[in-house]
């Protein structure tokens, strides 16, 4: 029964995804078989391809885990994109000026990512807890603030002396995260992401904080009467949510790009919502979901080249998946209340 419930959402989503993508390929005049072959070839066909898939997996996993944390607490954080960007900005801005031993520098830069993203999440949390501002609007709007703030800064004081675009100076090589898969761009950042997933699993299932968080999300009135400070849970969970996304931003800077660039995320923070939902908000399932979406991200380009299906079609389909899953959760929540 439980297995069925767990699989109904994610499995249904995958089937839906395959059907929609097949339709898109047929419309584009390609046989789905060729299209999917191109997709998987592009995603898993060689060391560098696998590396790219896992780079995307890692980049999606951080914001998805952060979103799951907020969601479990009953908060819809759609500001992971901005939180990730600010985390990356902190790491990039400081990283370009840093004078520390390499390993210590890496830790400091990742911690700065957590600080930046956490700060960005905490602002929305504070607005919600203090003024009862809607967290969806607050986190969404802070995305724009983050985007334009970082753009202004890297076009101004933070712009690297030799930069050709809107970006900071490069990090000293000793702060680059070590490569995990030789022959690819994949850094050990993905191990950090997996460690976060494990820690989060432990937090949800074992800790008092996780317990309070889930109570606040599943039954706010009962939680309040159980002496749980909902306002505190609200801002802490949004801050932590942002911090996890921010670390993700910092790993992109230290692991792959080695500088901050305003174009560093093609929307990881938004696709992360789908990843979190497909993963049923369970950290370990989310790892699997992130890998699936990583394949789409990395294989999409190859598919576009050989099967003439535009890569953007994949994003359209991902958007549909978000809608379907969000609606499903909403309906489930409604029937739950109705049954009571």
């Amino acid at each position, binding site marked *: 029964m439980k297995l069925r419930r767990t699989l109904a959402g994610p499995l249904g989503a995958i089937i839906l995804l395959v059907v929609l993508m097949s339709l898109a390929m047929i419309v584009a005049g390609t046989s789905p078989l060729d299209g999917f072959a191109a997709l998987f070839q592009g995603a898993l066909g060689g060391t560098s391809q696998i590396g790219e898939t896992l780079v995307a997996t890692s980049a999606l996993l951080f914001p998805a885990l952060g979103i799951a944390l907020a969601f479990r607490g009953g908060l819809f954080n759609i500001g992971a994109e901005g939180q990730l960007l600010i985390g990356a900005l902190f790491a990039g801005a400081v990283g370009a000026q840093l004078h520390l031993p390499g390993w210590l520098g890496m830790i400091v830069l990742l911690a700065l990512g957590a600080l930046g993203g956490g700060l960005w999440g905490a602002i929305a949390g504070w607005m919600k807890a203090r003024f009862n501002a809607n967290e969806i609007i607050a986190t969404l709007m802070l995305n724009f603030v983050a985007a334009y703030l970082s753009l202004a800064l890297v076009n101004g004081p933070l712009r690297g002396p030799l930069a050709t675009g809107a970006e900071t100076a490069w990090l000293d090589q000793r702060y680059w995260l070590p490569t995990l898969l030789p022959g690819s761009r994949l850094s050990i950042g993905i191990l950090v992401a997996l460690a976060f997933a494990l820690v989060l699993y432990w937090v949800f299932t074992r*800790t*008092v904080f996780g*317990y309070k968080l889930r109570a606040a999300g*599943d*039954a706010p009135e009962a939680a309040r*009467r159980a002496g749980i400070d909902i306002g505190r849970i609200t801002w802490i969970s949004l801050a932590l949510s942002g911090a996890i996304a921010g670390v993700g931003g910092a790993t992109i800077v230290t692991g792959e790009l080695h500088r901050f660039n305003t174009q560093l995320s093609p929307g990881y923070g938004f696709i992360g919502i789908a990843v979190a939902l497909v993963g049923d908000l369970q950290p370990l399932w989310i790892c699997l979901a992130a890998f699936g979406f990583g394949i789409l991200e990395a294989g999409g380009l190859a598919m576009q080249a050989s099967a003439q299906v535009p890569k953007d079609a994949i994003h359209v389909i991902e958007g549909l998946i978000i809608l379907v899953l969000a609606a499903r959760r909403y309906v489930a929540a409604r029937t*739950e209340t109705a049954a009571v």
Partner: protein
Amino acid sequence: MIARPALTLRGIRKSYPGVVAVDDVDLDLYPGEIHALVGENGAGKSTLSAIAFGETRADAGSVEASGTVGLVHQHFELVGRLRVWENVLLGREPRRGWRIDETAAHERVRAVAERNGLAIDPDALVEGLPIGVQQRVELLRELDREPSVLLLDEPTAALAPAEIAAFFATVQRLAQRGTAVMIVTHKLQEVIAYATRVSVMRHGTIVARMETATTSVDAIARAMVGGDLPGVAAREATQPTPCLTIEALCAGAGETRIEGLHLEVRAGEIVGIAGVEGNGQSTLADAVAGMIGYDGRIAFAHPRATLGVIPQDRQREALVMPWSIVENVVLGRQDRPGIRRGVVIDRAHALADAQRIKERFDVRTPSLDVPVRTLSGGNQQKVVVGRALIDSPDVVLAYNPTRGIDVGAAALVQSRLMEARNRGAAVLLISFELDEILALADRIAVMYRGAIVGDFERSNVDRAAIGRLMAGLSNA
């Protein structure tokens, strides 16, 4: 009973996934009788009355009525912002052209009210009316359709004793004029006092049919539970010492505001708050539980006193419905030593607590890991009460602890409250069931419009005086 029945049910059967709600039931209602349908929760009463009304379709069997059938729901279905006459005639308004003929409508409502001896102002806004009057509106709406059969689902659940008497006077007049009345209820005293016949349901079938003239509350109760009633634990001698003191309490707003309330609850006694719902009881409970701000003083005898709370709405305020019993047993205790170990929850401890509650409260469940949502209301309440009492709190705040649960579960919950008192807890019992308060309380305080208007020791309880105070009549 020589007359032809007004409503005949034959071989009614209805099942829902996993349960047979009604199983091969025959029932006749005769013109002029008041027929009580009683049974524990889940016995099938509501399903049967919904089938009789035609709201639910039976899987098998036949329903024959000699005229229209009316049903008054337990939860009123009124439009608060409309006037009385608008509610009574909703959907059946007399028209003049495309407009409502207000004069005719007024006349019609006045006539129906007069014919049935119900005093009411047709122009009053429903939302401002007391519960008892709202019920009259609900009743009028059905009476306007001149039903030959009238079904009443828990009609007195929200009424004060004086309103109950007036309500049954109306019902008896209706019956005398030839209406067949069926009352679904769990108040057995009312069954004996007002009904002519009673049918007892258990597990979807009618297990006993009795004339109320020749039976007793006890006999009906035994038929309901299918055996002897579990007794409530005995009241032991205690030495009451001050424990919880409430002085000049002001809190809340509007109808349920409390103004200058004084109350003392001593260790080793149960203080019962009697009153009709909506007179500030929930404000008092919220203030004592620390859920709302207040002026005045709420003081415990010693600063480290612990409080066990049984909230009024178990599904919204006390439980996380999708969670397991074990997880719910932790709720509210998540920071207590023993449950909390460092940053983690001691799951072995939580499991042991859940096991203890299951045994002490006879929680019927296939496993402690099932979501509490799947438990019956009675078993959910046992979990809530068990959790409130498991740490032996100094003060217990119980808000309608047996509301909507069956007789057996209620007796068990009441016993555990009595035992908590016996071991020296101060118990503040807020209940809308006067019988429950009379059975449990050492002292009774009557609450009306946010203040304590009367105070009785167990030794000199005057039921009639309490009833008058509850209805807002000064102690005349």
